[in-house]
């Protein structure tokens, strides 16, 4: 076939074949221009003129913004003080950065709202219980996930309710919800939304895919109705319309109404996320389970949902992040959440100083960013693990 003898071909040993390899080519190292720091820079930062320009532009942007930001947040910042005097301009203090003294001074209010001082330890216990539940449920290698689920979905809600709302029989005086406020309310509202929306969303998703026309119709109407209405509307309906329909003596609590509204709203979104997961599973998984004689419930519980939920974890967390930030909307029905606590302190004359508002908002954004970034980092780590598992 070829005129010149290719390397690796033993002459005179060819038989009828045109080409017979006598030695396998060994794997070789890539050339040095393809590895190391210089190659990385060339491949990632200076690929072409446009990329080089963008790299330079971004470096300049960082140069212009980062030093002033550091100045404002740390170097010129005021760390101690008990009122506005600490953060106002004076003859000797012509530059004032972030007024952290304000945040430090009002930190307890931001966290606990108007919750009575003597009872605030209950909120701390609640936070600890919550963190235990989150770590136990989400840490992939944690032991006894079944117990964790019972802890997270049964024990924690009940214990939290008894703790926060109070149980006089256990020596915990009742604290009415109009005294609740701050970070604690934001966390409670988000936690309830998160804990309720997943099971309810799963039920709605299963209902929507069910063969029973009545159940299916109900789920479709519920999901589409809730998704078609803004959260603010749902909250208004829950807090303004609902009281019109029930007699005075059974008026549900204001916070409870908002909680129900948020939980139902989140469930509708969760249902669509779970449905996407159910639909992503190949039909063969259903058929394999059915052919073995598994009933519908067993099939869903043992085969379909474990797989469907696993592939939807990133989307579930995404919904949770949205829900977490949406909880700031409860302020419009008069609930005193974290952002509202900052807002109220910011306009308090005790702390009337030029940088107080900005500092308060920076604190809020740090809190929200920390929580949301933690959620999204977790989702990404799960995704990475799933990618590894898929390659198995």
């Amino acid at each position, binding site marked *: 076939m070829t005129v010149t003898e290719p390397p690796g071909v033993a002459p005179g040993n060819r038989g009828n074949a045109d080409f017979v390899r006598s030695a396998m080519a060994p794997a070789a190292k890539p050339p040095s221009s393809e590895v190391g720091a210089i190659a990385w820079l060339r491949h990632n930062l200076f690929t072409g003129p446009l990329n080089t320009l963008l790299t330079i532009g971004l470096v300049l942007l960082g140069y212009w913004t980062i030093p002033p930001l550091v100045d404002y947040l740390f170097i010129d910042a005021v760390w101690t003080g008990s009122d506005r005097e600490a953060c106002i301009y004076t003859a000797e203090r012509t530059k004032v950065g972030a007024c952290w003294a304000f945040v430090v001074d009002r930190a307890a209010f931001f966290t606990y709202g108007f919750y009575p001082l003597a009872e605030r330890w209950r909120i701390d216990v609640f936070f600890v219980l919550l963190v235990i539940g989150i770590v136990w449920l989400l840490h992939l290698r944690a032991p006894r996930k079944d117990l964790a689920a019972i802890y997270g979905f049964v024990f924690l809600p009940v214990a939290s309710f008894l703790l926060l709302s109070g149980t006089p029989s256990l020596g915990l005086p009742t604290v009415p919800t109009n005294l609740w406020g701050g970070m604690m309310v934001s966390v409670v509202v988000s936690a309830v939304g998160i804990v309720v929306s997943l099971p309810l969303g799963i039920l709605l998703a299963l209902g929507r895919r069910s063969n029973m026309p009545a159940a299916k119709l109900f789920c479709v109407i519920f999901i589409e109705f809730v998704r078609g209405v803004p959260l603010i509307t749902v909250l208004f309906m829950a807090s303004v319309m609902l009281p019109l329909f029930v007699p005075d003596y059974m008026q549900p609590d204001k916070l409870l109404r908002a909680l129900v509204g948020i939980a139902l709203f989140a469930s509708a979104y969760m249902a669509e996320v779970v449905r996407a997961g159910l639909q992503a599973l*190949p039909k*063969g*998984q259903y*058929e*394999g*389970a*059915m*052919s*073995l*004689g*598994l*009933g519908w419930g*067993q099939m869903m519980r*043992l*085969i379909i949902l*474990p*797989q469907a939920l*696993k592939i939807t974890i990133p989307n579930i967390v995404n919904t949770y992040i949205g829900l977490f930030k949406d909880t700031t909307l409860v302020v419009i029905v008069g609930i005193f959440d974290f952002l509202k606590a900052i807002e109220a302190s910011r306009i308090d004359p005790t702390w009337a100083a030029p940088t107080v508002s900005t500092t308060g908002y920076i604190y809020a954004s740090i809190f929200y960013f920390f929580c949301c970034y933690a959620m999204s980092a977790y989702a990404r780590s799960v995704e990475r693990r799933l990618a590894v*598992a*898929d*390659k*198995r």
Partner: protein
Amino acid sequence: MTNTAPAGLKPAKLTHETAIEMIGVNKWYGEFHVLRDIDLTIARGERVVVCGPSGSGKSTLIRCVNRLEEHQKGRIIVDGVELTNDLKRIDEIRREVGMVFQHFNLFPHLTILENCTLAPIWVKKMPKKDAEEVAMHYLTRVKIPEQALKYPGQLSGGQQQRVAIARSLCMSPKIMLFDEPTSALDPEMVKEVLDTMVALAEEGMTMICVTHEMGFARQVADRVIFMDQGQIVEANTPDEFFRDPRHERTRLFLSQILH
């Protein structure tokens, strides 16, 4: 009805115990008439190979046997139980009928062993220890006991299909259905799966097998059924079927697949 059926639609074996009886079965997908007047009786211990062009309804036929597909007219009686909308009966039949799919349909989130013990534990309420013993027995029979703790994705196609066979056998079914079990396999893997099926056939399992492996049909089938356009066109012993196909359509089909 079975009394008047032609010889080919009756069991080739002389045992008179009936495993599956289909009488005047019809099925439509919307407007499409996918199964037309299927009359078929299969005896206990009989091995039937179903072949035919794609879209001829052969997969649908065997999927009707364990109600993965619903037939709209006619009767299907499996192991003395008639398939109706009664969910209890359907589950009862599915426990007795094992099925092996083209794409294995193993559960990727469970280990091989868990794949095999799942149904015995949850459907038959077998203690976990016993179920694992049974599973290891069948995994040994399909020659992959050493893979028990791996996940399906770590196995080759041929190994996965053998696990799927073992998984079905763990329910000790009376009837096994095979829906093109080797069609999705790399050529090098086909033999190991066919060998497993031959061994199963030699033990007297009642089998219906949709396949284009004509060598397998020759070797183990008691009857070969050829389907086209939702109908049984020809049914005969493999010797006769391959040596002397009677119907024009059968001859054309065989000339296409036996080069």
